[in-house]
């Protein structure tokens, strides 16, 4: 019997290639862990379909490159005939008629969708507590959050319910839960992965990316998703193939550590772990210099104008007319109000109202337009910083995983969880979070960001650091 806790996707692929196991056996082993979902990672599982696909792949004389290795998919990505809710009651029971491009590309490469993972409703949140359905628990400490919004996908990989998974990142929704769950999470350059089939939260920020237990697995999963999609005008041609990283050294690599993100508000244990990893950078031959992103202090405010503004329009389509549950009312306005009022959660409503206000006539210039201008300043900050350094480092999250319920009553404290990841998102840049140590027995994430389309450089540096740091991504007590 295969033990998924001892596996990475790469090891699973090697075992499949060597004939030591089959896709069917692999899927069964992971499904056993998915079905015993102590962490609340999954919202929907189609075991029969996963098993059937595995048998089909096992019967193929020529195996597709991913050979039937399972993948968990955040419930914000459309999967044909498999319930897709974006974590919201307003899409309860919704079975899409089409599959998101990124998922379809993985399936075409031989990956098997093992289930849909829990998330903050419409990807709005940093703890997955805003799910319309269930809590997800952190595999390192069941009383703590897994981070969010892709908390289910992060927990599933940390708990070895899948060797890798897909998340989406708007302001940190891949990197922050990766950090809190002690795994690798990568947000690609905006436009690298098609958004077709990604249920939009904030269109100008949303990106799909991988979670994995190793940097090489993350790179491999991403390599099958990137590239222009005619269904997404904002998707871009990938300038070079994604290469599996092999670097062991960082000779000549200049890493800038963001001064503004190492001060107040960052837990001492987090700061210490990040500082230790900067020492590792130097041991590997790299140099570490301080960099400043002076506009980044406005990142949170900027993000909480732009993202809600876009979401206020993006979520307007959920009106109960064409799909999802519909309230029965005497007139159209009541139908809209009862459907939307009753089925959206409080955080979603808060952001829709924020965004509607920010776009309102008479307020647009003061809020939305101004936020776009600050966004440009933040873009310029990064451009300026990248004149002197190759990569920019910071904590991924200012804290380790916090207790369930701790921040739900105070939205602003929840928003602060993304203070380190948001500036990178506003600039549309690629960034990776890797575990760099423990603080109070909980994982700490290191964020590395690079210029647009520097994913290969990021993977190389992250891989070298990962090897040198030697973090074990298996939470204690998780083993069989």
């Amino acid at each position: 019997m295969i033990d998924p806790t001892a596996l990475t996707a790469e090891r699973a692929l090697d075992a499949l290639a060597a004939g030591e196991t089959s896709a069917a056996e692999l899927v069964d082993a992971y499904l056993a862990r998915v079905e015993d979902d102590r962490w609340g990672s999954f919202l929907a599982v189609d075991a029969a379909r996963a098993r059937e696909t595995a048998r089909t792949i096992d019967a193929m004389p020529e195996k597709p490159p991913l050979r039937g290795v399972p993948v968990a998919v955040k419930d914000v990505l459309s999967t044909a005939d498999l319930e897709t809710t974006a974590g919201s009651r307003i899409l309860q029971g919704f079975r899409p008629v089409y599959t998101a491009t990124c998922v379809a590309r993985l399936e075409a490469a031989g990956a098997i969708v093992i289930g849909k993972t829990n998330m903050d409703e419409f990807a709005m949140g940093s703890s997955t507590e805003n799910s319309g359905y269930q809590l997800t628990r952190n595999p390192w400490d069941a009383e703590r959050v897994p981070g969010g919004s892709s908390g289910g996908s992060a927990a599933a990989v940390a708990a070895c319910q899948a060797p890798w998974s897909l998340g989406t990142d708007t302001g940190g929704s891949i990197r922050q839960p990766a950090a809190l769950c002690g795994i690798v999470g990568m947000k690609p350059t905006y436009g690298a992965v098609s958004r077709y089939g990604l249920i939009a939260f904030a269109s100008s920020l949303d990106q799909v990316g991988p979670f994995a237990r190793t940097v090489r697995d993350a790179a491999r999963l991403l390599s099958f998703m990137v590239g222009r999609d005619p269904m997404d005008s904002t998707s871009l041609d990938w300038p070079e193939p994604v290469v599996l990283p092999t670097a062991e050294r960082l000779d000549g690599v200049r890493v800038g550590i963001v001064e503004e993100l190492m001060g107040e508000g960052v837990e001492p244990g987090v700061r210490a772990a990040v500082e230790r990893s900067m020492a590792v950078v130097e041991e590997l031959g790299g140099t570490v210099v301080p960099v400043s992103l002076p506009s980044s202090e406005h990142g949170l405010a900027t993000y909480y104008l732009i993202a809600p503004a876009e979401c206020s329009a993006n979520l307007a389509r959920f009106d109960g007319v064409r799909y999802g549950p519909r309230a029965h009312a005497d007139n159209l306005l009541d139908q809209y109000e009862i459907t939307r009022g009753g089925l959206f959660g409080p955080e979603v409503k808060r952001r829709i109202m924020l965004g509607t206000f920010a776009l309102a006539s008479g307020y647009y210039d003061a809020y939305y337009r101004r936020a776009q201008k600050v966004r440009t300043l933040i873009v310029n900050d990064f451009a300026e910083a990248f004149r002197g350094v190759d990569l920019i480092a910071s904590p991924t999250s200012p804290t380790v995983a916090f207790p369930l319920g701790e921040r739900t009553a105070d939205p602003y404290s929840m928003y602060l969880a993304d203070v380190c990841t948001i500036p990178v998102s506003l600039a549309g840049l690629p960034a990776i979070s890797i575990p760099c140590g423990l603080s109070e027995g909980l994982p700490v994430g290191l964020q590395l960001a690079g210029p647009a389309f520097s994913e290969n450089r990021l993977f190389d540096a992250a891989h070298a650091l990962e090897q040198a740091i030697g973090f074990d991504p298996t939470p204690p007590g998780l083993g069989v």
Partner: protein
Amino acid sequence: MSHPGWEAVIGIEIHVQLQTRTKMFCGCELSFGDPPNTHTCPVCLAHPGALPVANAEAVRLGIVAGLALGCEIATESTFHRKNYFYPDLPKAYQISQYDEPLCVGGSFTYIEEDGERTVRITRVHLEEDAAKLLHLSSGGRRAGAEQSAVDFNRGGTPLAEIVTEPDLRSGQEASDFLKQLRATLRELGVSDCNMEEGSMRADANVSVRPAGSTELGTKTELKNINSFTFLRRGIDAEIARQIALIESGERVVQETLHFDPDTGELHPLRSKEEAHDYRYFPEPDLVPIAPDPAWVAELRAELPELPVARRRRYQRDLGLSYEDGEVLTETPELSAWFERTAALVEPKLAANWIRGDLRALLAERGEEPWQSNVTPEGLATLIAMVEAGEVSRPNAKVVLAAVVETGADPRAVVDEQGLGAMGDGDELRAAVERVVADNPKQAEQLRGGQDKLAGFFVGQVMKATQGRADPKAVGDLVREIVGGDER
């Protein structure tokens, strides 16, 4: 309609459906009259996660329209979202253009009976149409409807919105301007501008001011006008209403009005529908339109002779009347058909025949000349035969009817049916003599000076000769034979 001492100021917004194969932001085919919801996809139904992709052909047609209107084509233009909730708008926002439209700042010159007029064009922008709502109730009326259904076939249809400056001065001008603009857009293949099918709709902004004033009065908007007559009547009614209001000491209120063609009255649309804050913001799902300048130059160079220029040429060089010009430049097909005919016979004669007998005959069949059995060569042959006296004018009409029916060569029809003119020879003289002999009483009266009886004899002879005689020749012969006494 004239109001001494007052001047009306009118601007028009025109929506035309672009003649593309597919919708504005997805690959669904455009259709009219197909069963409901048979041309839909995740994009035009606004399924979760679906994204728009701009239709390149719609962009091309928008640019062509802009070039024909003398606009500047923006080097970069953006789409915006216009937000409002309604079941015919599945995304709850319309993708349109706002402060960076595709084309800006042109003009359009059109022809009035007393000369040419120029209307400045503010902008041309692209957007998508809403779906169609069907309100179902036993009485079929919207009020009290028990259910509403949505047909998304039309949802996402590409539209160009053309906005003019307030340069028009009457309902007639607005109607003439719009007719000639329509001919231009049809000629370019931008739109079929079929008002009955809704592929062309107009809104008019109307205000009045004392003649000689340069200030603008308070304007009202007449929405969704779908015929030239209603446009003219609606605007004229609104001008009269505004002047009457002001003359009686009241104020014009800025509002949106609906013109009821049955009663000729204007009714305000509910103010609730006006109170929208559309919260426009740039559409993040689409990249800006940045057409290659070389391509735009190519499109400019490819512009054909446009209907107004052609009409100017018809009236100035071919001696056609204002009405001839109007009718014959309505569609590029009709213009081409006319020009092929006019190349073979005198253009004015061709125009008269096309506008007169030919269209009258074809109207019963619901055909236009270029769709009919008649060829320009056939019509020209017939006209030439009439001019040469080979067939009488009345019989030419009979011949034309046969050609319309069967597409036969007119000369063959004349031969087969024996419709050739008799000339003024012995055969005709014998026929006239016979009719005179048969009607001695009338002959006597004519001889006695009752000239109106000449018509009676001509009619009798034409009847007796099955129309083959030339009525003028008959008249001469009747006088010669009856009227022994020369006057």
